[in-house]
Each structure stands twice: as C-alpha cells, then as structure tokens.
C-alpha cells in the first residue's frame, strides 16, 4: 500500500488531538542530527534517513520517572520514524521490563498506549554499524508475526510504501484510510525498495570495512586480562554517556521522596561505568577499578544479555561511539579483542 507524503502529513494533523505524535526533526544546533519532537503541525519532519540522537527508551523508560505511584500517562501515542536498531532495542527492553514475574509499571503503560510506525534507513551516520551485528537498517516481517512495528513506512520517491506489522497497525491503517488516499504498491515500487535496501547495506558495509563482521564475543569473558582492558580504557573519563545513550541500557537507581507514610519513589537511569554503581555499604565493590567497569559494559551487552534474553544488548546503532567525549569506538574495542 502506498500513501503520499502530503497525505501522511494530513493523517498526523488529523490525529494530533487524540494522540501525542513524536516524529524526528533536525536538531536546532546540528542539521545532521535528528531528535524526536512532539508533532504540532510542523511538516519539516524527517521520517526516514537514519536513527535519532535520542534512543527509543527516552519515550518508554524515561530518564527519571516516579514509580510509586506510577507516573506514566495513558494518553495514546504514536512514535513515527523508529529505525530497526531501536526496534531491536525494544525487544531487549520488553524481555527485561515485561518479564513474567515483574512488570515495570510505567514501561508497561507507555508500551501499551503507544503505536509504532517504523521507517527504513535511507542514509547512514559514520557510527552506524548494524550490519556488523547481522542486523538490517530496515525491519523485516517476522515469521511468527511478533513484529515490533505496528506499521512500517518506506520512502519511495515522494511517497511511502506501507507494511502492516500487527493488529494495532491495522487499526492505524483504518484511521489513515479515513483521510488519505491509499493506493496499491506496484512491482516497480517493490523493485525500487529492494534496490534501496541493497544500496544502504552496501553503504554500511563500506563505512565499516575496517571491521570484521565475524566477531567472537566469548573473548570478552575469557580475557580477564588486566593489561588489555587497562589499555582499552585508558581514555575513558567515566562520564556514563555510553550507557545513558544506549537504547538497551536500563539500569536504574531508586530515590526516595517519601514524606512520612506517603511513599514516593523515583527511578532514574544509572550507569555501571560510575564508581559508586556496584559499591555496597561498607565500601566493598565487585568492580572497583575503571577497567573492570569498562569491561563490564562489553560483558553485559555481548555476553550476559545474550545469556539472559537470547539477544545481544548491542543493536549497532553507534550512539555510544558518537557520544563518547574520549573518542572510544566500540567497534575498535571489539576488533582489538579479536586480535589479543
């Protein structure tokens, strides 16, 4: 199915009173950077291109939110232009936060009330490296039907090809049909999409040609070698930026703002890179040294999350690389570990 860009804009305008709609826009300070903003009629949004600066978790697992009592709002939301690296991250967050025994109250509310319209990448950032993780820069429909996108839209020329991912997506499509002209995609459109996919994959492969996609992650566990990790972490300034910007990091601390027996608890993102993170009262810490904390992030993403959720904690979005003030490149770290 196909919808024109102007019709899509009309669709958002029609829904903006009933839904909070978030769409990527160029940021004020850097046109190359995209960031989610609430739609209020501004048609200069950028649906495709590449990932936003802000990871998807900022909309589902807020940097700081009250959990006692839960503060998430039940207003319906639509998040548009989510890229595959963030959809994959949502799978990790779902596994961690909607677990059988314990369900994170706010995350559940945000998740249940949100529709996701994903989009294919049509361009890359220098840090994008999903292909090194066997991921694609666009979502593909799953055989078990458990798609992370409700609708996916794929730009072809000045229109969008729509793919329905879930029953929630069907509902959105019904709403879209009320105000937009929906036509059928032709075989020429499908061919164009395939060509676009091949082109973007090629571009990603070129950007990452210095790095081998054949990565062995067991070396992270096995190399409990102080010298290697000390060397790799020399430049780290322990800002915690890599973990805050990572779409799958969900570590938090709980702060108490209770007054007498009126209990209030606020959870705020935390970072395993900070020295107080694992320290217990009395001063003992399993990761007292910087290199141990630095290694922990790699251990967590590539070994522990894989063991816990059968999914890697890295989706190849490259945000940790873009954000690191010391210029540490996760790809280089993994690569040099292969060579130890």
């Amino acid at each position, binding site marked *: 199915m196909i919808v024109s860009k102007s019709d899509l804009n009309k669709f958002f305008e029609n829904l903006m009173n009933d839904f909070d709609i978030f769409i990527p826009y160029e940021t004020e300070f850097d046109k190359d950077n995209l960031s989610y903003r609430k739609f209020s009629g501004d048609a200069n949004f950028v649906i495709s291109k590449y990932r936003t600066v802000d990871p998807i978790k900022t909309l589902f697992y807020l940097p700081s939110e009250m959990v006692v009592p839960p503060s998430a709002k039940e207003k319906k939301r639509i998040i548009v232009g989510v890229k595959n690296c963030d959809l994959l991250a949502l799978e990790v967050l779902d596994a961690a936060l909607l677990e059988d025994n314990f369900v994170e109250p706010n995350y559940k509310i945000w998740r249940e009330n949100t529709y996701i319209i994903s989009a294919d990448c049509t361009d890359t950032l220098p840090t994008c490296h999903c292909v090194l993780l066997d991921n694609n820069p666009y979502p593909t429909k799953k055989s078990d039907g458990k798609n992370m996108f409700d609708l996916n839209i794929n730009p072809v020329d000045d229109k969008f090809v729509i793919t329905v991912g879930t029953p929630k997506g069907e509902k959105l499509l019904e709403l879209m049909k009320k105000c937009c002209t929906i036509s059928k995609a032709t075989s020429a459109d499908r061919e164009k999409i395939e060509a676009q996919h091949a082109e973007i994959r090629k571009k990603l492969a070129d950007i990452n040609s210095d790095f081998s996609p054949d990565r062995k992650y067991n070396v992270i566990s096995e190399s409990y070698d102080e010298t290697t990790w000390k060397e790799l972490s020399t430049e780290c300034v322990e800002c915690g930026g890599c973990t805050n910007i990572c779409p799958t990091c969900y570590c938090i601390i709980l702060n108490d703002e209770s007054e007498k027996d009126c209990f209030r*608890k606020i959870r705020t993102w935390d970072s395993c890179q900070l020295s107080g993170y694992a320290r217990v009262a009395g001063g003992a810490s*399993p990761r007292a040294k910087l290199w141990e904390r630095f290694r922990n992030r790699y251990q967590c993403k590539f070994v522990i999350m894989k063991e816990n959720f059968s999914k890697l904690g890295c989706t190849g979005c490259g945000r940790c690389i873009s954000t690191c003030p010391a210029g540490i490149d996760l790809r280089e770290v993994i690569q040099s570990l292969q060579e130890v």
Partner: protein
Amino acid sequence: MANPYEVLKADVLDVITESPTIKTFRIKPEKQFEFETGQFVELTVPGIGEAPFTPSSSHYEKEEMDITIMKVGFVTEAVHRVKRGDVLGIRGPYGKGYPLDKFKGKDILILGGGVGLAPLRCLLLTLIHDIDDYKSITVCFGARSPEDMIYKDQFDDWRKYDKIHLLRSVDKIPEGQHWNEKVGVVTVLMDDIKIDTKDAVAVVCGPPIMMKFGTFALVDKGFKDENIYLSMEKKMYCGFGQCRHCVMGKYYACKDGPVFSYDMIKNEEKIWE
C-alpha cells in the same frame, strides 16, 4: 499486575541495641507480610532512601518482623536514628531463600559472622519451629569482640535444645571485656564440629572475607559444593532483576539469590567482593 515497587507502611514497635553498631528493629507492616527464610526486603526510611535487609525473625511470624541492621552507610545511619513509634516503609519479599526441603533429615551447620547472624537467626528460629524435621543443628557464630556479639540474651534459649550444638568465637578480647569461649576467627570453631560433613548442609553469612574463607574451610572439611549455601550481599536496589546493580555474572543476587549454592556461583567472577 501489582506494582512491584509498591511500599507498605510499617510501624516501629521496638528498637533493641545489640552492639555499639547494630540494632534490631521490631516492625509491624500494615498488613500480613509473608516471606521465606533467606529472602530479603527493601526497607524505606521516608525521605532518605531504602536498603535491602533479610529479616531476623522466624518466617512463621507473619504479623511482626525483626530486622537487625548494622550502621555502615547512608541509609543505615538514618535507620539507626529511628525510634519506637516512627514509620518505615517495607516492600518485598524478594529473591530465593534457603531450600529447606533439601535440609530435611540432615545435619545442618550454620556459619555466621558479625551482622551476618541476622538472616541466620531467621533461619535458626524457623528450623527450631520444625526441629523434629532435622537431624542436628550446629551453630558457629563469630564476632570481632565480645561486645560485637549480637543476640547475647538468646543463646541460652537455643542451648536448651538437645539437637542444637552452639559454638562461638571472638577475634580478640579488648581490655575490660570478658569472654570464656573460643578466641580466633570463626573458622577456628570448625575444629570442634562433630558431624559427618559428606551428607550435611552448611549455610554461610557474614562479611565478604569471612564468607570466602568460611566457604573454603567448609570445602576442606568435606562439605560438598552443592550443599554449601551462601547468602550473598550485593547492591540490591529494585529487588527483581531490573536495576542490574547486583549482577554476578549471569545471575542477579536479588532474583536468583540472595541464597546461592556454592556450586552454582563458584565460577562466576568476583563473588567475594
């Protein structure tokens, strides 16, 4: 589904000073609070924060609960200022406790040091409740000095049971304090145990260094790795495996523990720190 962070109000009924740094708080949660021995709770000091503790009263007591706390950090210093009549918050219980089914009919050794006696008192009182189910209970408790030994007034009660064999040691006897039992780190008591260790179970709780050498001593004595149970102290924040602070390799101390058998975790990194 219920909010896993939900906090219950708990009235402080009594505060008992156990040692210069340790107090026991008797609290009454606003509704019945069930837990299994070895599980932990998160105790809130309103406006200050919360920290994980294992109750020290029997799990058969469901209306009131004792929690023994050492003054060692930010939250526990605030807890120590709490008085009878004040209000605390409690949530939980979390984690897996001691697998009592596997203790039935066996000789049990309880090895504890310092404030590590707190969860072990919970276990001991629970075992005493069903004492006919167990073959024998050997209790080895250590403290730095006589005045650091907690639950002083309760040992005579426990000694009344034929099945309970109680041994205590202190690291040293400072001037002015009196002690007529063993002197030395708690593992010195292991020379005096009289059970067949091959089929016995052991439970260890105490400061990290004591847990480490205590466990090694038990292995030396012939206890099997799978029969040694450790109560691990890590930074348990949320209590259910979401905040990740207490991760020990692939395990979470809060969710998969805090009680682990030694064979389960001996190959994980840095378990003693």
